[in-house]
Each structure stands twice: as C-alpha cells, then as structure tokens.
C-alpha cells in the first residue's frame, strides 16, 4: 500500500510537471521552470556520484561547460538549427564522458579533501582553456543558433527536453541506489579500504559513477546553452554552478533520491526570482551562501532524512500514547507498556532513516 501511495505521488508530480507550461504560459515563469529543470537534472546527476560515493566534486561545471561548448561548436560547424540542435545532446554526453574518464582516473586516486581540491583545479583549467582557444571563441564565447519556433510557446521544447532529462536521470538515480553498483558506491563512501577488503573494486566503481554523472551534466550544459543562447567562459564554466548544485543536494539530503530534486525545485526558482526582482545578482548569491551555512549548521543531513525521522518519531509518540491509554485494560501487565513504547520508537527511528533514503 505504501508502494502504491508512493507511485501515485510520483505520477501526480509528473502530471503536474507535464501540464505546467500549458497552464502557466507566462514566459517569465516558464523560463524559470526550464532553468529549474536543467539544474535539477544536474543536481540529481551530481548526487549519483558525489552523494552516493562521498567524493564531493566541485568540478562538475567542467562537464556542464563542456556540454555547452560541444553543442555550440558542433551546431556552428554543421550549421544545425531548430530541433536538430537537440540532436546534439548525445554528442555533448559523449564528449563529457570522454573527458570524465581521464579526469576521473587522475582525481579518483586521492581521497576526500585532496579530491575536492583537484576537481577545483580541473575547473580552472577548463575555464582558462575555453578563454584561450579560438575554437571556443575565446573570451567572447560562442553563440547558439536562434530557435525558429513560435514565440508564444518558445520555451516548451526546452521545457519538455529538460523534463525528459530530469525524469530519466532521477529514474537512473533510483535504479543505481538500490543496485549492487549503488551499494558498492555507498560502501566506498563509508569506508573505502574496508570495502576493498570485501572485494569491491573501488576504482572502476567510482569511475563509472563519475562518468554517468558527467554524461547527464554534459547534456544539461548543452541544453542550457541552447536555451540561454550563448556560452562564454565565465558562465559556461561557473564556480556558482557547483556551489548551487552542492547546496541543492545538501539541502534536500545528500545521497537520497529525492533530496537533490527537492533542493533544486526550491532553490533554483528562488534564486532566479531574486535575480529578477532585485537586478543586483549578488543578492541571490549572498542568500545562497547564507542558506548553505544554515543547512550545514541546522540540517546537516538535509530536509528529507531529518523530516522523515521527525514524522516517524511523531507517529511513534502517538502510537505509544495510544498504547499507554490501552494499558489501563486488565489483560495488560503493567510492566509491558514502557518497554514496548521504547521498542516501537526505536523501530520508528530506523524506519525513518530507511524512508529518508
């Protein structure tokens, strides 16, 4: 029954997302929506690698930018326009994956903090490369072909492509989490050396997750590029990209399936809205930083795990209150009740943690 309820909930959310741009046709709203879906896909993809493996990457903007430039350069070279540009997204994925293999082989040799620093180094190398190559258009960047569809429903093709990417990525995240592969990733997160001693071949497992994550991020970057209309080094390779994605995942719950999704669906629209309301873009950045601090200090495990635990504890309290009321009946031994209450709340805590995944 719980599975049924969950499936119903997922279908309801999908239905809302599917009709959203048909109901709300305001261009400002749909623009924010497209942006949100792209970032949600990126956040879920980031979580597949960093959330599950515990290796925090601050260099995923490399793949985002690579996807953007791949679509830009290929569209220019082959003079593609209109819908055909969407056909370049698999190419963006392939290039991002091709780049992720050597980068992963280098970075994944080191652990934790050193890994983070190396991913940041990759990020700066990528940004500087884009600025200095002629094929990427140097500091002036590269322009996307103008989409040729109707202005009234201009955002719709982007919206549905982004939605499809997000749905597929989330399904992948769900599939991976429950799989042997996902279990190996989470074992690596908890104790990589111990996992190796139990037969987990850590490098191929980590690399596979890194590449999968890069593939989606590259496609998100390619889509974003076509949507925005241009790529310049400081926006295609943007340090704020990684900060945003990390905050989204941490806010919702690192390593959970729904966490990064929830984080992106709340944070990205808020950021976009703030930027529109107060043309000073630094305000949203300052608030993003403040939110990051608040999450780390107040909700270190994220909204979803903490929330699920709170709900389960509340349920357990209700149950034990009911048990206490029933304890008045003659069949019960007086000694039974407190022990039972204790057990049930412990069970609840466990199942809550389970639910929070």
């Amino acid at each position, binding site marked *: 029954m719980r599975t049924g309820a969950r499936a119903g909930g997922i279908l309801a959310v999908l239905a809302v997302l599917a009709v959203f741009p048909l109901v709300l046709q305001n261009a400002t709203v749909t623009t924010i929506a497209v942006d949100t879906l792209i970032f949600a896909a990126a956040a879920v993809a980031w979580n597949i690698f960093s959330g599950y493996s515990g290796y925090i990457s601050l260099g995923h903007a490399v793949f985002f930018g690579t996807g953007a430039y791949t679509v830009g350069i290929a569209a220019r070279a082959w003079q593609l326009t209109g819908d055909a540009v969407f056909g370049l997204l698999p190419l963006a994925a392939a290039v991002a994956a091709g780049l992720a293999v050597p980068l992963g082989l280098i970075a994944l040799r080191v652990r934790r903090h050193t890994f983070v620093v190396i991913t940041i180094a990759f990020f700066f190398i990528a940004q500087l490369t884009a600025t200095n190559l002629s094929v990427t258009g140097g500091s002036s960047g590269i322009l996307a072909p103008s989409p040729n569809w109707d202005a009234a429903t201009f955002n719709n093709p982007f919206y549905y492509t982004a939605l499809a990417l997000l749905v597929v990525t989330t399904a992948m995240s769900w599939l991976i989490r429950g799989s042997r592969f996902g279990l190996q990733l989470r074992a690596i997160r908890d104790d990589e050396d111990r996992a*190796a001693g*139990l037969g987990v071949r850590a490098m191929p497992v980590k690399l596979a997750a890194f590449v999968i994550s890069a593939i989606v991020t590259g496609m998100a970057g390619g889509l974003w590029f076509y949507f925005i209309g241009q790529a310049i080094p400081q926006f295609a390779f943007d340090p704020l990209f990684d900060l945003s994605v990390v905050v989204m995942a941490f806010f919702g719950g690192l390593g959970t399936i729904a966490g990064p999704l929830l984080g992106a669906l709340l944070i990205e629209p808020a950021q976009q809205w703030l930027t529109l309301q107060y043309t000073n873009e630094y305000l949203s950045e300052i608030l993003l930083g403040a939110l990051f601090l608040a999450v780390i200090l107040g909700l270190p495990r994220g909204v979803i795990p903490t929330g699920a635990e709170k709900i389960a504890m509340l349920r357990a309290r209700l149950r034990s209150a009911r048990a206490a009321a029933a304890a008045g009946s003659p069949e019960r031994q007086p000694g039974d009740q407190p022990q039972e209450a204790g057990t049930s709340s412990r069970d609840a805590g466990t199942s809550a943690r389970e639910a929070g995944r």
Partner: protein
Amino acid sequence: MTVMLRAEGVSKAFGGVQALRDCTVEVEQGSIAGLIGPNGSGKTTLFNIVTGYERVDGGDIYLGDSKITNLLPQRVFAAGIGRTFQLTRIFPRLTVMENMLVAAQHTGSKRTRNPLARAGGRADRRRAAELLEFTGIAGHSDALADTLSYGQRKLLELSYVLVADPAIVLLDEPAGGVNPSLIQHIADRIRELNTAGKTFLIVEHNMDFVMGLCGQVTVLDYGTVVAAGPPQIIRSDPRVLDAYLGITEEDDDAGPG
C-alpha cells in the same frame, strides 16, 4: 596436514622501524592458529601484508599453492582470505543487511553480472540472514550499522566476512574490548565454524581466549618469530616468557605500589 596459508621470510620496514624481519608463519588447513606477541611486535602488520593492505619489502605469501604476494585487497579477498580489523570497521550508514550484502556480491564465479540488478539476490540474502542468525544479531538486520554496540559490531564484522565463504578467516583481536559473556559467545561461534571446516588465524591479547581456542600458536617479538607450537608448549617456553610475559612483569613493577 596441508598448509593453507604461508608467510615466508616476510620483511617490512616503516621508515627506520623494522616491523617484520624474515618472518615465517604457517597455518594448517582446518586449524585455528593463534598469533601472539607484545604490542608493536608486528602482528597487525603481518595481517595487513597478507590481506594486501601493505606491500612486503621481502618474502612471499602463499595461499595453498598460489602466490598472493602484494595483491590488492580485493584480489586477496577474491582469492579466499577474509579478515576483520582490530578496531572494527563496518559501514555505519548502511543497514546491517546491506553491510552483509557488500561482501556477498563478490562470491561465486566470474559469470557475467548486471551491476544494476538489485543488491543482493534471494540466495545472498538468505545466506546473510542465516549468518546473522548464527552470530546472534539477526534482530538488527534492518537497523543502521551505526546503531550497533561495540560487541555487536564485532559480530557483524565476523558475519560479513563469512558471507563470501572465504577459505581462511583472519581475526584481529576478536575479543578485544568485548564483555566476557560475549567473548564466550564469539569463541563458541569460531569453534563451531572450525568444526564445519573453516580455517582461522587469530591475533589476540586475551591469553585464555587464544590458549583455549588455538591448536597452534606463533609468537612474534620485534618482528621475528620467537616460538611456534601447541599452546601448552608455548605457555612454558622461556623465550616466550621473556618476550611476552617478561614485559608484563616489568609493567607490573613499574606500576604504583
């Protein structure tokens, strides 16, 4: 009797410290062997070398007839050596069952596997559940490993090492820091597994535990083997008393009073 595990002339130095010097240790198939020695005598280093966590400077490790010197930990595990750690190492944010399944998925032959298949097939889960039942922590199957007590963690570590059915199990201080009734429980489990054919090599400071359980005991001191033999011989060997108990007496003398 056939030798199952053999460390032959193993040497290992950390900087200027010679942790192991030309050290030879053998474990017979189907036995429970003990490895004792004062702190810093090289017991855990030998474990780390055998299981691939450290590389040897010299010497070789054999499992049966095959040389496994300097293999990576995952290969050593696949070859059939399971181990536990002195300070228990479990996966705290996985459930107890998931902890078991990490090791379970590497069992069996090299048949093609689907990495995206659900973790733990029915057979793996059944075997994991049986082992948890056997070690006595089956009731915690769905709890996060983080919530287990220290003794329960020791039992979980023992359980998940057994999931893959290794040929030999190396236990690093299975009784360390565990309450006396649980020590008995652990010793009984080891004895039962041994009766069923499992080979053990045990590092332990608890002399009663080692002497009561092991058929063969090797004594290390300053990285070299000073004695090897059945417990009753080891107990009275003057070199052992000197290396091991001698230090204990000095410690006692140095104490207050």
